[in-house]
């Protein structure tokens, strides 16, 4: 993040950071309890929804980085 000076680049990396945080929420809210034998309740299952944002965030960042390098 510190190495990226472009405002667009920083925004993209911020998206990735949020995507990672949602992954952490899924890990703590679903994956770990599930692995330890807890029956997944509906709120636990809903913590999987942000996972769908992760590939979109990475894809968005990849497009942005490709456009930086092509300039």
């Amino acid at each position: 993040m510190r190495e990226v000076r472009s405002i667009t680049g920083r925004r993209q990396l911020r998206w990735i950071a949020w995507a990672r945080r949602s992954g952490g929420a899924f890990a703590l809210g679903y994956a770990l309890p599930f692995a330890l034998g807890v029956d997944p309740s509906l709120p636990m299952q809903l913590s999987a929804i942000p996972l769908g944002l992760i590939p979109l965030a990475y894809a968005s960042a990849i497009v942005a980085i490709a456009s930086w390098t092509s300039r």
Partner: protein
Amino acid sequence: MRVGPVLPVLVVSGLLCLGIANISARATWHAVEDGVLWTTQPEGVVAADVAADTPAAAEGIKRGDLLLAIDDRPVQEMSDVVEMLRAEEAGQTVRYTILRLGTREVVDVRIAPIPSGARALYSCLRPSAFSRCSSAARCGCGVHATLRRCTSSGWPSPSRRLHVLVQRPPRSARLGLLLGRRGLDAPAAAALPAFHARLPRTGAPVDGRFGGPRDRALVYVPAALLGVAHVVAFARSSADAGRFVRVLETLDRLELLYLAGCLIAGLAASPAR
């Protein structure tokens, strides 16, 4: 090296299309079951296990019953059962002719939709391109190489057991199997945790740097071990159905434990904290 924007845009578009295809295929997926784990034995198609609270259990089908025919059409292999059930709709009644202790019996079984289980939402949203591709292909071909029948409230406690149906697809759907769980889906699922652990450790998502050999081993060795364990479990699935169920339960727990560890490791290593 200069990279034009066309290729990434194509990749992103492809991912989006696969995601939409996956959700669409799951929404329209038609699969039914009778609640019996049928296996092909030398004497014919035999009930290896019958799940509780299923149509077959309600009609009194028991372990060891030999299935002779469905709707008067003879059954010779487990794939015949899969094909015949696939042609039916949930709620319809099919007539099983079974042989039990030397006596022929006819049982009417009202088939039911397959429960999606507690992992349905996670499976649908799993951010894996290969997974989405293979799911779409599998659903499109009407193939379900492996179906897990969970209790309605999710992961089984000791009193609620996971019932696993292992069904062989018809010959016409070999391509679907190739692209299915044992083809691309399993490697994709194994690679997903490493994806989450590796990318956040880089300064930029396309940077290839990642820790040292020990870091790589910590991320990739569990994936390889889980993958090999799954392959071995499936290879030996016909030997002991009960043991196969227990092994898959354990592997599923370990898989999510590994995923959780990688997600947390990726979060901890975030350069944008």
